[in-house]
């Protein structure tokens, strides 16, 4: 008995000595630690790796940016080009020409001067996909020429009238030619440029124009940014910012509670309450651009109920059977709205009508379309075919929750469903890889496709246009749901090239009505982007003007001030 007690005592002393005996490290108050849920492999610019592009806001700013109210403000340029200040012209052929004037005295973080040549270099790289594999959108098609006028002035001429010159296919000046040109000449591509890699960061090779410089990247742990002495904007309130990688969402909250991080962001709505309960934490949200929708395959469907989905009344019935407002409140959180259209809300017509929850309407439309329960098995059928939806989504939990809930609603009106959650790589694989969406091998699917928050121009013929339906002959389209409205296509083209704002808005609203009328896209929710900050470390009054676009969180991080 004595020996047993001695043994237990020794074990306890060992554990306690480890936990209590070792002194904790003192913390530096001027260091801001942000919890980052995913470590990017590279800091590649305009990357397809979203979490890399968020980090560029610390070290690589660009010509202009957008605040939380979606108002544009100049960063590298003297002023925002506009017809009023004469920097936007309409040429004789109708094409738009935009002149950019860089501010004098801009320096890269290594002290070199920033000039128009840097912007011209990025234009060169963007025009040729072999020089760097990153998203370029429609830039190569819509930009006709790029002309350097002097060290600080250059112009871009578009192929057509281009009212979206501030938000799409704009000039990029945030990356240094003197660092990247030698790599391009040696390797033919900037993909492998050291300045974007952990080794490059650790060797001090990462050069940019931003409030901070990336100085240390400990793979698997964190990236450290120190204040950039050559930054000519507001001096950062925090001399050091550290992005700390924490994959587990519960641990992110615990880390904030324990003071190991000062900021958590982009967490899901169901965690808001938990963050609010953290002592000293203030939680705020900004309107997001990410939201899931249910997509109905009505024009590319070769399944057993293709004829049902081709009938707009059946599509209407499918949506009328679902209480999307209640689902958003219950599955996402109180106050969550259901978007009426894929396009940004700012451009919706005031009288835009969408389908609400109406079980009677769903039943009557299905009855009228001939889909009735003829054999009493609880499922509607027609000509011997049961109305069973092949219902896909990815393996994200919230989508699977929605899938189950919607199946219940459908069941209540006699519609069956096969629930098919699959990995994103299977759902979104392209046509030649037999991807579910591209081959049209589905009836309904839940996923998100982000729209530009700044423009009414869909500019997505591959997604919504009649020519975008993938086929063996043209496998590059993405319009797996087969939407095809020549009226919408024509209107959207007009939106893309109409310069007069009032006229443009009117056409855009007509296009949105046409889009909604097709009844194939139905929003489920639009989620907010949540932030939780430790008010013992950060003055909350200085921290709330964060970006609302997909890639500009922390676009005013230099203005964040330590708590007094």
């Amino acid at each position, binding site marked *: 008995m004595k020996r047993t007690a001695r043994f237990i005592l020794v074990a306890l002393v060992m554990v306690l000595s480890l936990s209590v005996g070792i002194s904790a490290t003192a913390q530096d108050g001027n260091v801001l630690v942000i919890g980052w849920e995913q470590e990017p*492999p590279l800091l590649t610019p305009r990357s*397809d790796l979203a979490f890399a592009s968020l980090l560029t806001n610390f070290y690589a700013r660009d010509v202009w940016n957008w605040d939380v109210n979606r108002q544009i403000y100049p960063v590298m340029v003297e002023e925002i080009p506009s017809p009023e200040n004469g920097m936007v012209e309409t040429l004789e052929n109708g094409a738009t020409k935009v002149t950019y004037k860089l501010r004098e005295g801009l320096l890269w973080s290594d002290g070199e001067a920033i000039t128009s040549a840097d912007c011209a270099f990025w234009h060169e790289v963007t025009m040729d996909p072999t020089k760097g594999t990153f998203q370029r959108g429609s830039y190569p098609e819509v930009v006709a020429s790029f002309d350097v006028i002097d060290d600080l002035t250059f112009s871009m001429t578009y192929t057509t009238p281009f009212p979206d010159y501030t938000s799409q296919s704009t000039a990029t000046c945030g990356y240094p030619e003197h660092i990247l040109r030698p790599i391009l000449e040696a390797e033919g591509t900037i993909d492998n440029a050291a300045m974007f890699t952990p080794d490059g960061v650790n060797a001090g090779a990462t050069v940019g124009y931003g409030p901070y410089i990336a100085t240390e990247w400990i793979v698997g742990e964190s990236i450290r940014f120190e204040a950039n002495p050559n930054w000519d904007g507001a001096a950062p309130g925090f001399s050091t910012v550290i992005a700390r990688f924490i994959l587990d969402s519960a641990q992110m909250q615990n880390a904030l*509670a324990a003071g190991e991080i000062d900021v958590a962001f982009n967490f899901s709505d169901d965690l808001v309450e938990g963050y609010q309960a953290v002592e000293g934490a203030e939680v705020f949200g900004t309107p997001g651009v990410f939201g899931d929708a249910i997509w109905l395959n009505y024009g590319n469907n070769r399944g057993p109920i293709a004829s049902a989905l081709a009938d707009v009344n059946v599509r209407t019935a499918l949506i009328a059977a679902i209480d999307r407002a209640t689902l958003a409140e219950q599955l996402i959180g109180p106050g969550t709205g259901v978007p009426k259209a894929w396009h940004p809300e700012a451009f919706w017509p005031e009288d835009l009508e969408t389908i609400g929850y109406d079980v009677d309407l769903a039943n009557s439309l299905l009855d009228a379309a001939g889909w009735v329960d003829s054999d009493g098995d609880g499922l509607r059928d027609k000509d011997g075919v049961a109305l069973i939806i092949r219902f896909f989504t990815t393996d994200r939990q919230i989508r699977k929750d929605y899938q189950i809930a919607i199946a219940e609603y459908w069941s209540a009106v006699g519609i069956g469903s096969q629930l098919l959650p699959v990995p994103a790589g299977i759902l979104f694989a392209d046509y030649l890889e037999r991807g579910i969406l591209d081959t049209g091998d589905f009836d309904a699917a839940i996923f998100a496709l982000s729209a530009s928050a700044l423009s009414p121009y869909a500019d997505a013929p591959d997604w919504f246009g009649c020519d975008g339906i993938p086929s063996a002959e043209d496998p590059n389209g993405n319009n797996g749901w087969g939407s095809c409205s020549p009226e919408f296509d024509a209107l959207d083209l007009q939106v893309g090239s109409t310069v007069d704002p009032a006229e443009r808005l009117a056409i855009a609203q007509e296009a949105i009505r046409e889009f909604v009328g097709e009844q194939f896209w139905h929003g489920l929710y639009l989620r907010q982007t949540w932030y939780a900050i430790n008010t013992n470390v950060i003055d909350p009054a200085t921290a709330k003007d964060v970006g609302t676009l997909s890639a500009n969180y922390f676009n005013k991080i230099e203005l964040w001030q330590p708590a007094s």
Partner: protein
Amino acid sequence: MTKYVVQRLLQAIPLLTIVTIVVFSLSFAGGNPFAYLAQDPRARPEDKFLLQEKYGLNDSIPVQFVTWLIGDDWRLRDLNMDGVGETPGERQGILRGDFGESVSAFRGKEVSRIFAERMPNTLILMVTQYVVTIVFALGIGILAAIRQYSWFDNMVTSISFVLYAMPVFLVALLLVQVFAVQCREVLRAVGGDPSICLPVQGMYDVRGDRSFDELLRHLILPVVSLAAINIAGYSRYIRSTMLEVINSDYIRTARSKGLTERRITFLHALKNASLPLVTIIALDIPFLLGGAVITETIFSWPGMGLAFINAVQPADPPLLMAFTVMTAVAVVFFQLVADVLYSWLDPRIRYN
């Protein structure tokens, strides 16, 4: 013995071949690693084509498997998109010691380098927890056996069953709540120093000095999370093997010769009771190399397990393959080591 070892090594070749073929096929179950580009209107087909061409994903799966085996430096890749290959491949294949390059999770990074960076962190965590496990399991198991049905044995049995039934993530999060989160709240409330509470995650405090002290503090919770469950299992095993041995005739003989209980327990009983442990430990070692996926994820421990999780979604075939091959080779090797050790430790065992 030499003949036996050679035979076992030869048997491993078809086994490893089958494992690699199966895992290679399965690593594509998650779909194309670049499929997510389809959700981004800014991505153009040529960007996707070039990324896939660069990493060999435009090839058929059998060709990709051959490339993984023997590399692609014997063929040309089409990186200027003119339909004709012009750029020699750079990979040498696993048969020439090249594990390839990560496609998604650590894009462009050599897999061997990822392993070199991560393995030490994993070994720090796993070896520490293993040593703690063995030391405590031996102590508890032996005590429980020699004090069979005592209050200590009953208590250990109850606690072991509870811990063994608990998933590691639950143990880990409970420990974090108590020793990191609630601890701070309580100490703040009573005016104590919250810095003595344990850290929530990571190997070091990012604001700290990366000292050995810091590492020890950060090790406590992940090690205890892993070791608590392992001790529960191992101690039961040691207790039962010890009970078997201490009730055998030769122990009775030793007692009748007047040897001390300590000498009987630690010299005669433990030596023989430890024999089966050799097999278990040898079989566990390969999994130490692979890291603890859940624990490393919860504690943001930058080891092999966390890298593995990053490699699963979106799929990173070269990284997944390297993990599998490493684990499979280690399992085969250490099983062989266990067999050899067994015959060395127990003269009754002979491999013919």
